[in-house]
């Protein structure tokens, strides 16, 4: 039993890294633009399907394919922001939820037309093989996915804290109006942030698709988890999203071992409710100073 639990903790940490990748995009977009991107889950699934197509039709390796899918998704993100988010003037936060939900429906519909509703999974030698370490069997893909997440999140850290764009982005996050006043083009920062958030889903989608079977409808399950993670971590807090991803995935995996897999997701949501009873602003969130 103890061995099973340790195994679950390891898997939880490794998959948690991938969730951190997906949720960091979501929380970043919220932090800068004050909108919740419900399409994030659908974009992850889209990213997974893009990797699937590149691999099936062009025999491009999943990780190499990211060099194509991530720029494509980045452009798609900029396009979505320009076409659907920027025109919203009144009640932006609320309307953005509905608009991005519509985008999610369209993505789900297009994927359904193109690929049908049967489940697929990404395959590669590292997705199907595993190695032994200290008595535990680990699939290569979990480790590779985790390493990929660490690299990309590291890149994101450098971008945010070591570049001029990062300064503008964090300034826009702290105070949009003040950032505009000191000459930051907040609209442009918003577009690029949205693009980065969506580009991260391409990588997250690949790692997700290689570990889990998915179909166009999988995004509901995914977005609800991502939302729980970013709320738990505190909306707009990157550190919170990272920690919440790891904690939630570990708890979910351990629950499915010690209790039952069917209750694992329920525990996930229950934890959110319990946490919010104690800390309405999430683990690392600021209390909302600016009130509606």
């Amino acid at each position, binding site marked *: 039993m103890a061995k099973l639990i340790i195994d679950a903790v390891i898997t939880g940490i490794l998959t948690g890294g991938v969730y951190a990748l997906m949720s960091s995009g979501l929380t970043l977009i919220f932090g800068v633009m004050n909108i919740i991107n419900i399409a994030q889950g659908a974009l992850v699934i889209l990213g997974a399907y893009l990797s699937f197509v590149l691999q099936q039709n062009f025999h491009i390796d999943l990780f190499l394919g990211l060099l194509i899918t991530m720029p494509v998704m980045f452009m798609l993100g900029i396009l979505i922001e320009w076409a659907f988010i920027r025109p*919203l003037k009144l009640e932006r936060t609320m309307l953005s939820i509905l608009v991005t939900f519509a985008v*999610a429906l369209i993505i789900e519909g297009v994927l359904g037309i193109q690929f049908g509703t049967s489940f697929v999974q990404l395959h590669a030698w590292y997705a199907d093989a595993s190695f032994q370490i200290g008595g535990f069997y680990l699939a290569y893909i979990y480790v590779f996915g985790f390493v990929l997440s660490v690299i990309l999140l590291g890149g994101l850290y450098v971008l945010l804290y070591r570049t001029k764009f990062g300064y503008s982005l964090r300034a826009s996050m702290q105070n949009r109006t003040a950032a505009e006043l000191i000459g930051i083009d907040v609209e442009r920062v918003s577009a690029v942030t949205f693009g980065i958030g969506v580009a991260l889903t391409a990588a997250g989608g690949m790692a997700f698709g290689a570990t889990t079977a998915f179909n166009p409808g999988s995004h509901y399950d995914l977005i609800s988890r991502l939302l729980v993670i970013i709320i738990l971590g505190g909306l707009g807090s990157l550190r919170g999203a990272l920690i919440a991803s790891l904690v939630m995935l570990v708890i979910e995996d351990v629950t499915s071992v010690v209790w039952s897999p069917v209750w694992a997701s329920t525990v996930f949501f229950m934890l959110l409710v319990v946490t919010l009873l104690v800390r309405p602003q999430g683990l690392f969130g600021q209390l909302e100073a600016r009130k*509606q």
Partner: protein
Amino acid sequence: MKIIKITGLIALLAVFIAFPLVFSDPAITIIAVFTMLFAVATTGWNIFSGYTGYIALGHAAYFGLGAYAMALMAQDWKIPAGYAPFFLLPLAGLVAAIFAVPFGWIALRTRRHTFVVITIAIFFIMQLMAYNLRGITNGSAGLTLPIPFDWSADFFNLPFYYVALALLLLALGVSWWVRNSKYGLGLLAIRDDEDRALGLGVKTGPSKLVAFVISAFFVGMVGALHAYFIGSLYPPFAFDALFDVAVALMAFLGGLGTLAGPILGALILVPTQQYFTLQFSENGYYLVIYGILFLVIILLLPEGILPTIRKRWIKWMAYRSQSGKIQVVAGTSGQEDALVAESSGKRDGVNL
């Protein structure tokens, strides 16, 4: 003016009552039943979300709770098919409302965007419960409700239509009362500026919770009636994420926070939706069209049909009176326009 209004309302009611008798084709009346059901649900949803400005995207939870309450009551109390199950509707709504008390209390501890996400999370918890609590819900195998076999195909839809119409009148009555009461004024104040409302002595917490519970009550009754109409109950259809947004979309289309807007939205969207479902039975196309429709509505009519018409009307009146004689009217309507502009400007400021 008042007489014209009342006559108009009575005429409209007569149209609603006569509709299934004139167009008695079951293929049409079934759409009419769904339209009525959504009109009730959207009106109920609007009592909370429209008046307080807190957009709840998890009301499918109360739809499902009402549906399961109905199915379980009919099963355990061995209610025969026919008119009897209709009398269970208020009880089913009550069950949903009772669940809404703790859920609403938890969700309303947070402010707007977090609130949206928590309502979604609660919805998913309830859906998972429907799958997992097999002893009560029979899991994904689902439940069946009594089916009134002795109603002929031509007649079958009519009782459901009229019961839904009665629910609509009730919901509309409550919505009208809330809108015109001091309590409703408090809700509108919360929508405009919650902190100021609190400062002026509006008990914001209890006010929001009561509105939340009322809206859950109506949505629960709709879920129960819908379940009896369909005759069977499965977790993904009882707790349907599309229902969450469909209700919000209808309210947005007609005019969020207006009395008749939600009904107008349902009258437009449900038949459209049913038409697309019939035309493009393949699931993918249906979703794409629905999504595009959704985007078009929100981007072109972010304020909804009724408020847009009202604004145009005020402008037109001002224009007419300026070119004519009555200067006073022009003055007041100009002021109203300024107020509208001011409030929208303020909202923008908050979002920046």
